[in-house]
């Protein structure tokens, strides 16, 4: 099979390359607007009946090759203008002026299964993002490029490490514990975007696999919002779908182009905590919590409650032997090192090069591209390199048969640093490093390779970065072959088969002597992990299309079949107890533990039909039905059907009299759809697992244990009765174009309700199981989306455009399984994301301080200290924003284009562990706002907790010291006190690009030269102290709004150059 595919690919490559060399004659011309005579850049020019086409340059000029024999005609199309066809005849110069098309008839968008439809006919919501919008910020992770640009779409990053994942949520959440990520489809073939979740207690910041896609290869991305738009993709698109259309070659002499794009961006931390730099490590409390004169405590003490730093002599924090080894003094003057944390970070950079060759003739086209990306993160040992080769060729084999092939090979290697709630995370305690510690000047490693640090409980940040390693390499192939055959004017068939296959090899090293958990939690004996993960998804689509026009009615029908096969295999071993430092080979280990090795396979077969009809091109109705058969259910319930109905009414065509100076176009749309969703694989049965007792603190017993295999009944009960969960949605909306195309507006209301949600329902463990897979639970999401495009100024040489979007959505957990109060979806025992009936999705529960009914803190009347609420975790935060939005302002003046994207998030909360840590340890600037000590070093009691006394309910008046205040208010036991409103405004993207005038290029080999400056995440305004609220503990996950010792976020800025030969 593979061999045959390869042969066909090569055959086609040769075919397209050879045909591209045929002789042609050139036609040139200029395209202008009929209304005002302004030249139009970006107009599509195609030789009619061929794929031979080009685009006008910045001055509206074009040049296209046509075959000498065929005079034919040229078709000019451009958004907002009527598509115009012009006979060529004997002419060599064809100038055209295009008329504005106020009804937008020409705008075509790609919808589900790659079906191209006129925008005005759609009864559902899609949004297309073009390449130039995607590549503004030159981000490594494609998903980030959508941030703030689309109503109803929210991008949630995890942190600023190179290679970190970002989650994408289209219209909120549609299921509880399963994936809420949309289906990614490249040129009609679904690809894998898994892998973005982060472990909490070990490991690194992982990538979601869409990071493998080269943004320069993308022509456009179409976001299918909600079930109605994505229904043809079936069970896996209940959360919507993202369709990526790659760039294709264009036919014609002029289009034998070589394009080269290069960019270089600086990558740095966008926000550091604000530190105090007056007080040293130590304490000013006794062991029973009473104030005493401050004491300097070297060695392990990580808190900054010690004496005022003024150069006094203090004992070294190093042992006698280390002092001798490194020649360190026994005492040293106490000094503040204000940048000791900042200087741990470096300036990273991101370099990308893409070179693409494309061309063709009127029968065949091709495009070949190579992309190289080098991304160095802001911490040592964090980088990502990507090489991507892509070929796309298509050919009109006969007048009726068309064939295309595309193949993308990606090699992606990365090095990552430890993150998470663990002592090998260089910043786990590094964020609150004592202000007097000289991290850069002091030694981090002994000559034998072992680490040196003042705190014997924590890994030295430099040492862990250099010694606890994670390296991976991905080799991935995404490709497809597609055929289409036109039987006659009204019937055609298309067939497409494609696959996405990758092997990920991961090599991890836990250094001997690591104090934290690093990758494998082996308590310092050293470990090497070797893993190989294979993943393949193959899809086949067969579609029959029929079109018919009967009097005023147009009909079209699509009937098709999808076969989808997902297979995978994991192989991995950890070898622990290493003998040789730095050898890093698994053969060096004494003991071996297999990882979760195994194979998986799940299959899906779908049959679907899509019937569209319209009356006089102003009333459109679509009916869709799909039946899936999924292997994730038992055979007696694995087949399920779901329908959709969509409708749109072009009011301005139905009632032409309302068109005028104000109204150009109005469309009303409504739809109702239902989509089924598969079960998690292998959840219909209960199995026995290898025993592995553990307590959540690290200790565990890994089997084989004492030379024995041990198998235990799985705590999670399977359920043969599982049936699909269904997401039902309805939507109303309107799209309007007003004021002679100067204003475009789209408003949608949608409501999505998912029922029979499949989840592991927690049951009483006294039943012998802790969960059982069930169809339980109802989730409802509703919201408003508004998109607005405005052109406030448009003159011959200057144009100002505004694109804005605004989304408000509400996720409500209607019910869980009977008797189930809540389900944990991420986080820890305390500070946990939960699904709770009657609450918004993913609210955060945490231990916190006791408050009275009025929300006032309850204070111990005797000592003035706060009291812990012993009822356990309470609802402390709702991470769901009230609304989000984005505004892009674009200014064009001659060849200069400047654009600025601001994105807004109003409301929603974040629970920050760092902020609590910075405060309880006395590191944060605010902890030193009031003087801590009097002249003799005795703590001053100058804080009074705003609360009421537990004794009599009267206002608290007892004054306490700074250390008592901050270390109790934000103690380790009350993470719920670190909750902040995550409202923020940020300058997400900014770019200024300049396209050289054509006249300057006439004597150069270039047909187009463009260069620019750009940046991402440049400015941030928020009331959250110390951190960027856009960080997330669990990475691309349903759990949002939890920050636990996260890496900071990144700001990038740099330059880009695009050359076309």
């Amino acid at each position, binding site marked *: 099979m593979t061999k045959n595919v390869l042969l066909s690919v090569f055959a086609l490559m040769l075919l397209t390359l050879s045909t591209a060399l045929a002789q042609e004659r050139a036609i040139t011309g200029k395209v202008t607007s009929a209304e005002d005579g302004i030249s139009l850049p970006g107009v599509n020019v195609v030789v009619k009946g061929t794929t031979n086409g080009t685009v006008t340059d910045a001055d509206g000029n074009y040049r296209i090759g046509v075959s000498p024999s065929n005079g034919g005609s040229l078709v000019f199309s451009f958004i907002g203008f009527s598509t115009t066809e012009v006979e060529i005849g004997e002419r060599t110069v064809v100038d055209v002026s295009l008329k504005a098309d106020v009804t937008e008839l020409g705008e075509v968008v790609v919808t589900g299964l790659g079906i191209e439809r006129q925008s005005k006919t759609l009864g559902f919501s899609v949004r297309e993002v073009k390449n130039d919008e995607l590549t503004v910020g030159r981000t490594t992770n494609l998903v980030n490029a959508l941030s703030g640009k689309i109503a109803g779409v929210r991008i949630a990053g995890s942190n600023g490490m190179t290679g970190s994942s970002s989650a994408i949520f289209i219209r909120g959440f549609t299921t509880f514990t399963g994936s809420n990520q949309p289906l990614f489809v490249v040129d009609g073939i679904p690809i894998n975007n898994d892998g973005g979740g982060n472990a909490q207690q070990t490991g690194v910041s992982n990538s979601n696999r869409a990071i493998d896609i080269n943004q320069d290869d993308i022509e456009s991305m179409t976001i299918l919002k909600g079930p109605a738009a994505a229904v043809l993709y079936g069970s896996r698109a209940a959360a919507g779908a993202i369709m990526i259309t790659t760039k294709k070659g264009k036919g014609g002499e002029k289009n034998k182009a070589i394009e080269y794009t290069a960019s270089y961006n600086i990558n740095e931390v966008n926000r550091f905590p604000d530190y105090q730099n007056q007080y040293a490590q130590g304490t000013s409390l006794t*062991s*029973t*919590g009473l104030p005493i004169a401050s004491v300097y405590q070297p*060695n*392990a*003490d990580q808190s900054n409650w010690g004496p005022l730093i003024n150069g006094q002599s203090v004992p070294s924090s190093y042992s006698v032997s280390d002092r001798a080894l490194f020649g360190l003094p026994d005492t040293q003057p106490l000094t503040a090192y204000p940048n000791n944390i900042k200087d741990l970070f470096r300036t990273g950079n991101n370099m990308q090069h893409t070179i693409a060759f494309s061309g063709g003739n009127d029968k065949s086209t091709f495009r070949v591209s190579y992309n190289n990306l080098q991304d160095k993160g802001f911490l040592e040992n964090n980088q990502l390199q990507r090489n991507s080769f892509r070929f796309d060729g298509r050919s009109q084999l006969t007048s009726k048969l068309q064939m295309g092939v595309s193949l993308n090979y990606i090699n992606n290697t990365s090095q990552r640093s430890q993150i998470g709630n663990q*002592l090998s995370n260089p910043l786990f305690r590094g964020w609150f490093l004592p202000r007097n510690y000289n991290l850069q000047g002091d030694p981090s490693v002994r000559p034998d390779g072992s680490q040196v640090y003042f705190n*014997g*409980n924590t890994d030295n940040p430099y040492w862990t970065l250099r010694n606890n390693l994670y390296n991976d390499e991905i080799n991935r192939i995404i490709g497809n072959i597609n055929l289409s055959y036109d039987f006659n004017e009204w019937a055609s068939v298309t*067939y497409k088969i494609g696959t996405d296959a990758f092997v990920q090899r991961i090599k991890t090293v836990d250094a001997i*002597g690591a104090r934290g*958990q690093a990758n494998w*939690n082996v*308590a*310092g004996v050293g470990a090497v992990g070797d893993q190989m993960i294979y993943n393949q998804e193959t899809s086949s689509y*067969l579609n029959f299309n029929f079109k018919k026009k009967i009097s005023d009615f147009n009909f079209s029908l699509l009937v098709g*079949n999808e*076969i989808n*096969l997902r297979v995978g295999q994991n192989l991995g071993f950890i070898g622990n*107890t290493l003998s040789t430092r730095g050898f890093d080979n698994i053969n060096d280990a*004494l*003991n071996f533990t297999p990882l979760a090795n*195994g194979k*998986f*396979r799940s299959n899906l*077969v779908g049959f679907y039909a899509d019937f569209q009809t319209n009356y006089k091109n102003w009333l459109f109705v679509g009916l869709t039905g799909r039946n899936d058969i999924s*292997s994730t259910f038992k055979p007696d319930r*694995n087949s399920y059907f779901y329908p959709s109905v969509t409708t749109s009414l072009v009011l301005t065509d139905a009632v032409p009299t309302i068109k005028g100076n104000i109204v150009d176009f109005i469309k009303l749309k409504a739809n109702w759809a239902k989509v089924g969703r598969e079960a998690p694989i292998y959840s219909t049965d209960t199995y*026995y697992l290898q*025993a592995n*007792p*553990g*307590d959540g603190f*690290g*200790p*565990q*017993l890994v*089997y084989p*244990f004492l030379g024995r*295999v*041990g198998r*235990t*009944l799985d705590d999670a009960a399977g359920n043969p009765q599982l049936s699909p969960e269904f997401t039902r949605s309805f939507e109303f909306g309107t799209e309007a174009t007003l004021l002679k195309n100067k204003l475009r507006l789209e408003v949608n209301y949608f409501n999505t309700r998912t029922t029979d949600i499949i989840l592991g329902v*927690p*049951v*009483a*463990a*006294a*039943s*012998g*199981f*802790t969960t059982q897979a069930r169809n339980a639970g109802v989730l409802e999401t509703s919201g408003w989306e508004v998109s607005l495009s405005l052109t406030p100024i448009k003159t011959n040489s200057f144009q100002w455009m505004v694109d804005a979007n605004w989304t408000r959505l509400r996720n409500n957990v209607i019910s869980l399984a009977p008797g*189930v*109060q809540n389900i944990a979806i991420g986080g820890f025992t305390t500070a946990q994301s939960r699904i709770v009936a009657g609450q918004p999705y993913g609210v955060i529960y945490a231990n916190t301080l006791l408050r009275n009914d009025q929300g006032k803190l309850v204070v*111990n009347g005797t000592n003035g*200290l706060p009291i*812990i609420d*012993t009822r356990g975790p309470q609802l402390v935060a709702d991470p769901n924003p009230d609304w989000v939005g984005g505004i892009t302002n674009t200014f064009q003046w001659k060849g200069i284009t400047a654009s600025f994207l601001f994105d807004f998030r109003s409301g929603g909360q974040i629970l920050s562990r760092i902020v609590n840590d910075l405060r309880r340890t006395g590191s944060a600037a605010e902890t030193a706002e009031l003087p801590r000590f009097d002249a003799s070093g005795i703590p001053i009691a100058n804080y009074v907790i705003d609360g009421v006394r537990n004794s009599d309910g009267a206002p608290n008046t007892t004054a306490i010291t700074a250390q008592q205040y901050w270390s109790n208010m934000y*103690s*380790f036991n009350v993470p719920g006190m670190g909750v902040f409103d995550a409202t923020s405004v940020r300058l997400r993207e900014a770019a200024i690009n300049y396209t050289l005038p054509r006249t300057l290029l006439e004597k150069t080999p270039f047909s187009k030269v463009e260069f620019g400056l750009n940046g991402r995440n440049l400015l941030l305004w928020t009331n959250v102290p110390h951190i960027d609220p856009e960080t997330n503990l669990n990475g691309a996950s349903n759990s949002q709004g939890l920050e636990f010792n996260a890496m900071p976020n990144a700001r990038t800025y740099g330059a880009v150059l695009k050359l076309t030969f």
Partner: protein
Amino acid sequence: MKNIQPKFTKTICILIVISVLTGCQGFLDKNINPNLTSSNPPSLILSALEGNLGFIMGSDLLRYSALWTQQIAAQNGRQTEAYDLYILQPTEVNGVWRAAIYAGVLADCEELLKKDPTSTHPHYFGIAKLIKAFSYTVLVDNWGDVPYSQAIQGTSGNFAPDVDPGQAIYSAMLTLIDDAIKDLNATSLSPNVAGDDIIYGGSANIIRWVRFANTLKLRMYLHLANTQGFDTSVITTFINNTPVTNFMTAIADDFQARYDVIPQRQNPVHQFILSRTDDICTSATIVNLMNNKSDPRRAPYFTPFPFSPSLLASPPISTTGGYAGLANGTSNFGLRTNLSRLHTYVRGALTSSTIPAGPNLPVGVGGLTYNGGSSTNILSFAEYNFIRAELALRYGAPGSAATFYQAGINASMQEAGVSAPTAATYLASPSGTLSGTPAQQLQQLIEEKYVALFMVATEPWSDWRRTGYPVLSQVPSALNPGNGGNVPRVIFYPQQEVDANPKLVQRSSLSDKKVFWDTRP
């Protein structure tokens, strides 16, 4: 080209039809995980459930009871420090009750007991019943009333079992133990328990299971002895009717969990110290108690303080110091180095090639290193003797309290690796003889039992709840301890369990709804 078109279309169509049809057969008709089994031989279940039980008795429950009875203290500002201040919340006990005991050990016991009796050796049933009975005593001793009669019925659809009174569970377990002993005495030609019994080593040592069974009954009778209306003559009858060799006879009979010396398979306390460096430390309460008696078990229990390699080699024996602990509840987020550390008795043999120099042992894993291979005592021969001593002292059971008391100390010395002459010196000191009023004798007895049961889960806490000994230090009220500053008497039900089972009603505090045998005010 034209002539190939119909052929081409036909081929495609046929291909599609074939792929769809073959796809539907074997492509979709199963959802069987190829990586896991759905059957499980008795030997694999036994190895899993014994390992699981051992881990339970060396992890969460041990940390709670060892902190509350002040065998250890906590520092470093994390979870254990809160436990030390009696702040233990319902969310924190989910794992041990849910995954470990009920859905772990008990579910697997039930899987074993469901095996076909005609092809399964009865010794498997005997051991499964004993581990089940023991696990229920652990549940009752920590949580009081818990689900029993309707428990482990999830496979038949009962996901919210009723709660049974602890006393009723105790009486059912006494019957179950008798039942288990019958199984252990039965014979069969079916494959017998062997090395899969990672506690006692299978058929060759099956008598040790019988000894454990009877000693467990004694422990339960000791708990029952103080309850209203309990006829203590039952205990005398039981002892008189049981051959003395059917009780534990030597430390070789100890019911204990063994561990490997390789990472992630070591003693759970050792693993905890490695992953949560310095979160638990030595407690002043037990260190001072042992200092006062010049107890030679300090050398294997603790490292000397101030520390030096020479002191480690020849440990101090004076009463006035040489060892230091932290007063419980006084860490206040701090981390102290001026303490003795838990030593070989808990963490296994020393593996350091170089012993760090003094005066203070460096914190963290940079200090002494151990192999983590020490066993966790669950029910020991030493405890057997102390039970017999107390039964004789307080309830007129057969035997001499003084003799059993000394035998208990002696067994503990043996386990700690104390040499016979050194143990004899200790027994010859005033500490070696019960003296004074019955109440003073009880205190003396329990204090010795407390030292002998160092790092045994729950039972020292049960002794404190029953007798009030040893006398514990008060945690500082300025640090806002939980439970009103009172030593907990019982554990909260797990939050997830209460959430999932409406029949389980949460207690209001760690003193509310005490265990039925906890009758002391």
